């Protein structure tokens, strides 16, 4: 009997689409794998798969999640090895199937199996509050809610927090994505404290808006793999926090601004 500790299943969800769930999943998975952890990413967005593309693994897909639950293949056959890190595998979503093709029970069973051999299972949830979302949180030990600093996204995050807790996944954590410190500074974007106060949940991380994300998605290479990107640094910090390390929230003050450079030059900061 294997003596290793069971892995932890974390669902990454949001309610609203387009806030960066898939980017977050890809980067946290890659960052945790870089820390030496064994990671399985699951794309639970049946019919609209994207995690494979963000990871740059779309050409390697043979089997998918539905094939596994329908026992068309063995679990091992469907797990795609990451091309950069041997600790990381991806279980892709089916692209041509309906989200009802998998049940909550099947997801639970699948995650239980994966927990025996992985340190973390990160489940990329579909947007919305329908069956796909319920499947994604089935079997999760923990939930990470991603939001952006917009009224609509925060509203949906609040809705999802309630639903996640109703499903028995307690104390979800929050990631605030795409924050722009320049806008926060001039009072045109809600700040971190505002959102924590409104949602009343713990903050796991703050990720600044970063053009590099577009580039990294273009290439299919998570941004944590490239240096000198604030967003990459932020995701690496979050991965370390998941591992129990005490990493302070990133200082988002724009060090690239002319004023900041000038201050640095004259020794003011």
């Amino acid at each position, binding site marked *: 009997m294997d003596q290793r500790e069971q892995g932890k299943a974390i669902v990454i969800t949001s309610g609203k689409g387009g806030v960066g769930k898939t980017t977050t999943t890809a980067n946290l998975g890659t960052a945790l794998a870089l820390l030496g952890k064994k990671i399985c990413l699951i794309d639970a967005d049946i019919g609209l798969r994207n995690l494979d593309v963000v990871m740059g693994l779309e050409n390697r897909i043979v089997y998918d999640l539905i094939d596994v639950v329908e026992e068309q293949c063995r679990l091992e056959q469907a797990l795609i090895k990451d091309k950069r890190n041997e600790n990381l595998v991806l279980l892709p979503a089916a692209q041509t199937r309906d989200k009802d093709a998998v049940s909550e029970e099947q997801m639970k069973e699948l995650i239980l199996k994966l927990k025996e051999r992985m340190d973390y299972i990160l489940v990329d949830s579909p947007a919305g509050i329908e069956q796909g979302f319920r499947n994604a949180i089935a079997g999760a030990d923990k939930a990470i809610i991603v939001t952006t600093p*917009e009224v609509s996204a925060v*509203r949906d995050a609040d809705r999802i927090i309630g639903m996640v807790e109703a499903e028995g996944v307690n104390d979800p954590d929050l990631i605030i994505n795409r924050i722009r410190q320049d806008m926060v500074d*001039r009072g045109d974007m809600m700040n971190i404290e505002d959102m924590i106060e409104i949602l*009343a949940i713990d903050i796991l991380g703050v990720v600044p808006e970063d053009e590099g994300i577009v580039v990294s998605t273009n290439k299919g290479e998570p941004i944590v793999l490239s240096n000198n990107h604030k967003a990459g640094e932020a995701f690496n910090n979050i991965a370390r926090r998941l591992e129990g390390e005490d990493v302070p929230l990133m200082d988002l003050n724009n060090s690239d601004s002319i004023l900041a450079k000038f201050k640095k030059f004259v020794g003011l900061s």
Partner: protein
Amino acid sequence: MVINILAKIKDFFTQEETTENTGSSSVAKERLQFILVQDRIKLSPQEMEEMKAELIEVIIKYVEVDKDKIDMDISREDEKMAMVANFPIQKKQE
């Protein structure tokens, strides 16, 4: 001419101060708090107004209140919702 340039410089700096400081984030926060209250108690603004009117009716059956100063709000206290109402009781004119 000099004054003109000075004015322009002044404009430039005050513009930084004023037009950039639209402060829409506080609007966002206020709206959100209101929206979330409605989401959580599943009460539409209209139903809220109806409830308010009915409550006022009940209260004025028993005490004389200053109708213009009634304040009723649903707010969040820690993780719980609370309805806080304030009915100022009118001092009888003598």
